[in-house]
């Protein structure tokens, strides 16, 4: 049987159910979204289908209105059919996968599954998204066939954005079913799979809430403040900026308390059970409905002054009064800021000697202990636990990776000296002479397996190519401080940027030409891709603004022109090279990053793609071929000779607006709508597979006997486009929707994109338009207001509207 998921049922339309439905719809699966009939129907409503579906409709509407959006494209909602559990339950028989996301109540779930058991089509997979109820309790007494097709599929909130999907096999689940669902989750839904055991709260939440509970208790005991704790457990330790308390505000205090209680109740033998008891003040907050963001007040809240100024406040745990937020720091944090890598930052904080550093050390050690004691209770390997924390809690390092960063031997010595118990499995590992949980050898990453006391390969998907691993395996062809060319085998090479935010500087620009020459001599094709961390991460956030700023302030326009020319030559070089070049963008793909992508022969983009030409925000225009190439993407999308006779305004205005309004897509689907991605471009759901899929694309193009494009003049809108833009800008100026300076910039951008001073529907050489780009860029750079925009962006990260 070729198992497929053509149609899936999601039962329960709350925030999780709605999120799963939206994700499935985005992945091209038809979805049946069901919920209960409201209990409080009036008599006249009892036969009204709309009233009976009120709950599910409300759930779908909430998903559609969510911000950030759970849908990659709201149009995906057409794939979702709504219904209720009384009138539409028979339709479950049509579904290949039935995913239960109802309230966390064993009897309700069992009752529902007993209905499903009768209705499900043979072979259909049934799963529960329960975050805490043991699966064995749910399926007790069900048929063998049901149990063979039943498992846990535990998504994290918000479903679209959290990479983690915990899969929990039941005792009798068929291996074929498990493998299929893992592959489906990874490839179709883009998730990172963690294999969890059927234990309470599974992996991510079991570890996660213990850490939070422990830190909250310790904060009270050691007289630390909420902002102090959040300062320590932020980026300096590879945690998200939301740290501890802001994370709980996001999740909801009630949810957090519930998950803690679940662990406490169901894990009587947990050696750290006491850490799951929330401090009193947290319980009081829940009683007072201070639940976090959803009630607009949690550990933090934002007040508005009468002058509409936002003021951040933080709760005082002793008084439960909100006080003005002051952002504290510690010497160890100031020191860590100066360090380049996360490993160095972690060491700086953990081995510091101020109050904050000592607190951090104690808490992190507690985390080490807890995580190590959970293997093999909740998962078989350290990899599963690390991945769960990275993908479900947005840690940059899981507990074992952080332990490696701190130095296992070094930290264990200190733990012993200070009287912390060292988990037995770790002690044994050290005794056997193994001093790290992970190691990299010949490009392959290994983890230490406690059971066999040996290193084993970290499993990776067949589509996954890790640049870090390849580089560790001496596959770097050449490199400089900003970029590397990496051999990803089979004749394909990857051009990798590795600057901060992957900003494009002159080193990268020089590097592109050199790389193209090398691949021309030695390879079949090239991928432009990288694997910077973060959520969503940055493929490239644009040109290196500090470099541009320096050129502006020094009035070094000759060098500016040379830089732009080289960038354009690189991008054109990639386009017209005799071999295929595929860009693999993900996350932030802005400005110059977007230009690089548009210049490639093909784009294989991640589903989470925030792509746009945003240069106008700093008073500039895309001059690395971007102004031309977005237009080209539009006009070349027309079939055959159609461009000759088409009203180009219908293409020109949206292409122009992309730049003039600095439009950024909120997903790859939107990038398609905005015209950044075309018919030949592909969307990949799993970012880990992006470079691998881009390489496949290169090889496919090679296999298809790749013919490079012919360089020919470009059909342009000409001055007719400028007239349209002049008129519309006048309206926007009058309506105060843009500043005089925006108008000045927009007019010139229209001039460049429409091919300059030419009649409508003329054909203009690409080199001519590229020259117009450079001239406009330099003219803009001479303007005080552009320089002011650049300076403010560098200083504050926010655009200046002057």
């Amino acid at each position, binding site marked *: 049987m070729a198992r497929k998921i053509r149609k899936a049922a999601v039962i329960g339309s709350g925030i999780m159910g709605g999120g799963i439905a939206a994700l499935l719809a985005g992945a091209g699966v038809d979805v049946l979204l069901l919920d209960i009939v409201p209990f409080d129907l009036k008599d006249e409503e009892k036969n009204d289908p709309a009233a009976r579906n009120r709950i599910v409709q409300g759930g779908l509407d909430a998903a559609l209105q969510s911000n950030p959006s759970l849908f990659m494209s709201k149009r995906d909602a057409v794939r979702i059919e709504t219904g209720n559990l009384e009138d539409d339950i028979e339709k479950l028989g049509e579904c290949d996968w039935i995913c239960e996301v109802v309230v966390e109540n064993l009897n309700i779930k069992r009752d529902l599954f007993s209905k499903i058991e009768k209705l499900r089509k043979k072979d259909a997979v049934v799963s529960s998204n329960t975050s805490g109820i043991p699966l064995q309790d749910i399926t007790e007494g069900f048929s063998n066939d049901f149990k063979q097709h039943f498992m846990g599929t535990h998504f994290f909130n918000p479903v679209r954005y959290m990479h983690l999907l915990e899969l929990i096999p039941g005792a009798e689940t068929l291996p074929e079913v498990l493998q299929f669902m893992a592959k489906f989750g990874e490839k179709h839904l883009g998730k990172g799979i963690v294999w969890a055991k059927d234990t309470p709260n599974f992996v991510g939440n079991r570890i996660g809430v213990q850490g939070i509970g422990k830190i909250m208790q310790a904060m009270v005991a050691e007289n630390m403040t909420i902002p102090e704790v959040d300062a320590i457990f932020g980026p300096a330790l590879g945690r998200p900026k939301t740290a501890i308390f802001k994370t709980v505000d996001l999740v909801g205090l009630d949810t957090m308390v519930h998950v803690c209680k679940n662990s406490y109740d169901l894990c009587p033998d947990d050696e750290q059970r006491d850490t799951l008891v929330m401090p009193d003040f947290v319980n009081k907050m829940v009683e007072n409905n201070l639940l976090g963001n959803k009630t607009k007040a949690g550990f933090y809240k934002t007040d508005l002054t009468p002058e509409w100024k936002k003021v951040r406040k933080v709760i005082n745990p002793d008084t439960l009064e909100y006080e003005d937020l002051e952002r504290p720091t510690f010497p160890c944090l100031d020191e860590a800021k100066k360090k380049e890598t996360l490993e160095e930052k972690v060491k700086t904080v953990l081995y510091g000697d101020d109050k904050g550093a000592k607190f951090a050390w104690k808490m992190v050690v507690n985390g080490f202990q807890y995580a190590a004691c959970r293997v093999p209770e909740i998962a078989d390997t350290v990899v599963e636990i690390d991945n769960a924390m990275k993908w479900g809690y947005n840690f940059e390092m899981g507990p074992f990776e952080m332990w490696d960063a701190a130095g296992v031997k070094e930290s264990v010595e200190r733990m012993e000296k200070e009287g912390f118990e060292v988990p037995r499995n770790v002690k044994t590992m050290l005794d056997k002479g193994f001093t790290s949980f992970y190691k990299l050898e010949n490009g392959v990453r290994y983890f230490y397996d406690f059971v066999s006391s040996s290193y084993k390969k970290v499993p990776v998907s067949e589509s996954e190519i890790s640049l870090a691993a390849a580089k560790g395996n001496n596959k770097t062809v050449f490199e400089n401080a900003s970029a590397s060319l990496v051999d990803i085998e089979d004749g394909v090479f990857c051009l990798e940027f590795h600057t901060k935010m992957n900003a494009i500087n002159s080193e990268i620009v020089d590097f592109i030409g050199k790389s193209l020459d090398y691949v021309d001599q030695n390879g079949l094709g090239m991928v432009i891709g990288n694997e910077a961390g973060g959520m969503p991460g940055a493929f490239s956030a644009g040109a290196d603004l500090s470099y541009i700023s320096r050129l502006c302030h020094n009035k070094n326009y000759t060098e500016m022109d040379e830089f732009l020319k080289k960038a354009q030559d690189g991008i054109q070089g990639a386009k017209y090279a005799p071999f295929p070049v595929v860009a693999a963008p993900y996350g932030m793909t802005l400005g110059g990053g977007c230009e690089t992508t548009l210049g490639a022969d093909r784009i294989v983009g991640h589903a989470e793609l925030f792509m746009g030409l945003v240069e106008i925000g700093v008073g500039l225009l895309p001059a690395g071929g971007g102004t031309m190439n977005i237009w080209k993407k539009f006009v070349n999308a027309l079939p055959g000779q159609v461009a000759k006779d088409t*009203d180009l305004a219908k293409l020109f205005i949206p292409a122009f607006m992309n730049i003039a309004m600095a439009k950024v897509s909120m997903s790859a689907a939107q990038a398609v709508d905005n015209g950044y991605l075309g018919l030949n471009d592909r969307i990949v759901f799993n970012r880990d597979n992006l470079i691998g899929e881009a390489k496949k694309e290169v090889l496919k193009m090679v296999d298809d006997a790749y013919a490079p494009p012919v360089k020919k003049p470009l059909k342009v809108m000409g001055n007719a486009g400028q007239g*349209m833009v002049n008129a519309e*800008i006048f309206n926007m100026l009058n*309506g*105060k929707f843009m500043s005089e300076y925006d108008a000045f910039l927009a*007019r010139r951008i229209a001039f460049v994109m429409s091919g300059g001073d030419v009649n409508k529907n003329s054909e203009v050489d690409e080199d001519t338009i590229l020259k117009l780009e450079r001239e406009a860029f330099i003219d803009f750079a001479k303007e005080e207001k552009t320089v002011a925009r650049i300076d403010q962006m560098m200083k504050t990260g926010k655009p200046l509207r002057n």
Partner: protein
Amino acid sequence: MREAYIVQSVRTPGCKQKKGQFKETRPEELLSFIMKSAVERTQGLKPEHLEDVMCGCAFPEAEQGLNIGRVANQMAGFPEKVSGATVNRFCASGLEAIALASARVQMGWSDLTLGAGVESMTFVPMGGNIPRPHPEYSRTNAEMYVSMGVTAENVANRYNVSREDQDKFGAESQAKAARARDNGLFKEIVPTPAYKYVKQDNGTYKKEEFTVSHDDGIRQSTPEQLGKLRPVFAADGSVTAGNSSQTTDGAAATIIASKEKCDELGLKPVARLVGYTTVGCKSDEMGVGPRYAIPKILEQTGLAKEDIDIYEINEAFASQALYSIREIGIADMMDRINIHGGAIALGHPLGCTGAKLTATCLANLEEVGGKYGIVSMCMGGGMGAAAVFERI
């Protein structure tokens, strides 16, 4: 000059652009139907008596192109010899067409003409399908192409027309229109056939006909409700969907005959065009047009503003209509101005509006037993037009 008499003046309902009842009915059909109806409703008149059709249209292209004045008259079944022209003076096109049709009779060039107006803003959007402002002129004189909403904001700002006054004016227009509809006072409307394409059970579509009898944009609301709407054309503006005219589809027709032809065929004159004028103003405040055109037509015809029993002043925007009413000095005569509501409630089908307001003006003169009526409007590009009609 010869006497030229209006013997018939009718209109279709006005229906909302894209959302209204005419959204799938092409403009040629609206126009040919209303022209045909005008002839049929005129006792003693047959199509073969017609000589020429002047049809106003503000965007005479695409479905409204290829000289709709000729195409639609042939679709109406008029004989081949009936000629036709399309007249464009933006929002005064319909009035211009009636004036030209009258003038042809007065000059002795024709005996029997038809002045009409049509606009399907659904089929041809405002600005046309392919707007092409001149690249160089637009750089120095972009105001020539300015959006109408911006001009309304300019009028409100420059002449202090408050948001509250605009919303009150908008709500009153709606209330007057609702009252007129509910009491059957729109005597000038001819129920008009329309059609839509309806999906059948087998998945194919079928053209289904139906009749539209009422203007479909009338929405009663209080000034307070309108006060909640967001400004559309300026970040800090006062012009909203609630105090602006609606974009609308519709057609209207007026038949003009010489005195001799009336006698010969036994046609009953109902009114005559006494005078017509146009005047230019600043394009970025085009809405002030009536403020200049109405005094000019009063002077031309030797009438005083008090002599006028019915004013039909097109409500392109509440701001410009209110400003014009105040400046002309007729704010104390609101019982004579747009007595059945105006374009805020009934819609402003650009090139049709002049012809539509003529039909309304004559019907309203009849209702109140008045003698003189004025039809006036502003125009994009900065102009005003006004005509005086006398009921006979």
